[in-house]
């Protein structure tokens, strides 16, 4: 991909057109925000924007996971159910630890750490099956799709796992700043004497999830664009043969990428427990993995590998999220969202075909 542009005739399109084509999803996002802001009075507000971004934390994590895998030319279909598995097992573990009489904070921290470590396993299995046994990524991760789903349902008997420490949703849905205009400003929690009934008068600013997700995505984007790990990821997706000849340990690197993917799904699962306060298994029609792939492709990646950016995928997630949110607020039936995703995806691929040498 990188080398091919030099051999070709200079591109016909002007730099401006190419810049728009490269960032069309961001342009589309802006356009959509403007249209929804003008069309519906309730769309343009800090509260709404915060809610959308907060609720998409899982989407961002899964899309970032899928970005790395797709750049290598693979696909990871298991992330949605690995997330559900981690959510359920974190919740189950917390129940166990609580029953032992551990304090809430210890319970939560211990369970989260253990589950994050366990979340490396599905990726390790995926990576070994793909590299050692040469099973196509689609099949290997589809197998893990079934396995993770089955284990999650087995653990929770098909019901969400409730009865966890109250601490969880308070942290997961907390804000950095609580402001009552002209009255007070409080950090991390509302003042204890402030009545719950009046909570809507408060300005709640910057959900904890925001700095968290910015940090995670920033770190991943740095790894992908500035380190050897990232260069190897692009190289493998660009040409497997060339990477082998260049001395990259391709198998080892691919295992790392699938482990990273499942680890990010694990973070998403643990976050899910913090956000909802219960352990949720992933339902069949949730299609987390497909929406993650959609976001990554809308964000400019190519399923053939070698292309993609972490923040591009994040824009893809925002496009899908604000589309759903904007439609819902303007009273359009939410089902149009599914159709819109389909149309956007095809559009993304057509742009990719028209400008094949954009990176």
């Amino acid at each position, binding site marked *: 991909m990188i080398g091919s542009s030099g051999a070709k005739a200079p591109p016909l399109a002007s730099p401006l057109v190419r810049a728009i084509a490269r960032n069309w999803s961001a342009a589309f996002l802006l356009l959509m925000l403007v249209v929804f802001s003008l069309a519906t009075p309730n769309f343009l507000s800090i509260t709404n924007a915060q809610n959308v971004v907060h609720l998409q934390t899982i989407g961002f994590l899964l899309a970032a996971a899928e970005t790395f895998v797709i750049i290598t030319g693979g696909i990871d279909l298991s992330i949605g159910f690995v997330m559900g598995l981690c959510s359920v097992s974190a919740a189950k573990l917390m129940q166990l630890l609580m029953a032992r009489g551990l304090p809430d904070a210890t319970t939560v921290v211990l369970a989260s750490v253990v589950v994050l470590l366990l979340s490396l396993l599905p990726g390790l299995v995926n990576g070994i099956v793909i590299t050692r046994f040469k099973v196509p990524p689609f099949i290997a991760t589809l*197998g893990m799709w079934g396995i993770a789903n*089955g284990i999650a349902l087995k653990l929770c008997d098909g019901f969400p796992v409730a009865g966890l420490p109250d601490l969880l949703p308070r942290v997961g849905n907390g804000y950095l700043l609580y402001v009552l205009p002209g009255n007070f400003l409080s950090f991390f929690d509302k003042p204890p004497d402030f009545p719950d009934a009046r909570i809507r008068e408060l300005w709640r600013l910057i959900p904890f999830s925001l700095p968290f997700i910015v940090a995670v995505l920033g770190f991943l984007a740095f790894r992908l664009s500035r380190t050897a790990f990232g260069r190897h990821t692009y190289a493998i997706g660009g040409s497997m043969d060339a990477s082998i000849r260049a001395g990259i340990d391709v198998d080892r690197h691919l295992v790392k990428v699938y482990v990273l993917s499942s680890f990010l799904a694990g973070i998403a699962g643990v976050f899910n427990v913090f956000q909802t306060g219960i352990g949720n298994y992933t339902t069949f029609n949730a299609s987390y993995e497909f929406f993650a792939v959609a976001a990554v492709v809308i964000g400019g990646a190519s399923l053939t590998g070698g292309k993609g950016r972490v923040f591009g995928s994040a824009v893809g997630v925002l496009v899908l999220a604000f589309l759903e949110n904007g439609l819902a607020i303007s009273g359009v039936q939410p089902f149009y969202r599914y159709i819109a995703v389909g149309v956007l995806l095809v559009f993304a691929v057509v742009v990719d075909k028209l400008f094949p040498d954009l990176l």
Partner: protein
Amino acid sequence: METAKHGTAPGLAGGLRSFLGGRWVVIFLVLEIVYFSFTSKGFADFNSVQILLFYGTQVFLLAVAELFVIITGGIDLSVGYILGFASIVSIKIVNALVVAGLPVPAAIALGAVATLIVGLVPGLVNGWLVAWLKVPPFIATFSMLGVCHGVSELVINGVYALGMPQMAADIGNGYILYKAPHLPFVFFTPPQVARRTPVLELIPNIVIVAAIVIAIFAFVLARTRFGRHIYALGGSMDAAVRAGIPTKRRILQVYALSSFLASLAGVTYSFMYVSGKADAGASLLLDAIAAVMIGGASMFGGSGTVGRTMIGALILAVLDLGLRMAGVPTFNKYILVGVILVLAVIVERYLPEAQLSISEERK
């Protein structure tokens, strides 16, 4: 790897391997049936065979749909939601025709045919996107999944599509032959006997419909020029183009065919359950792809047969029913399907003569 594929390794191990190659799926199926016959009460019974085929109908049809697409080197993620879409369309059209005053049998027949025609549309769009716009099959059919999901929910406003003439339910849940004690065999209509009289019911209607359709497509794939073209373009697109095969048209036809079979599965669903819903087939996608893979097809295209795919689907159906009858929660099924799927692909790689064609993408 290389020697395992080409060389016929001498000695007992090599002989065993070449014996197992191509046969291990059948052996696995037999072992599975024997195992469940001992562990699940009532499994080794003629009736459970009928039940297995009856509830497996949709997966069988979707697996054949997926097989055609996978032979071309593509994938069709939309079959599950096309099934749901068709189940809704079928109910809506049949009901509309009954309201319009058509006699019930005509309304049912016409409604089913109309649904199958409408059901071609998603496939035609898929095929056009893949063949002409060069959209990767994964993306094109995933987009169609979204569109079918959205349109289905819009048609039914987010609830179930309900209600069909009683006759549709009778067809969907009826049998071809009935035999009550002291009465002759009757076709299609259950004999009027006292309740609790044991009536022998033979061959569910929809199983026969599915079997005929699948047999036709097995013939098409194995014995016609169309079938040869599909294998050829799955094996090597370049070679197929040079051989003068109209590859774009063939790809369009394959996706239309896939969508047709998924719609047929949707029609059978609506007749069986007398209801239609958008996500009726959402969970069947894994089974359909797994059946094709267990049946030895390659994800890279160019190989796979209907017969072996059916064995793959039967392995899954037996597993499902066996676990149910043993009282094991269905959760275990997902785990086993996942494991069998991956193992099947690995085994297929290490056994000679099992692959109809070899395409080693990665070194």
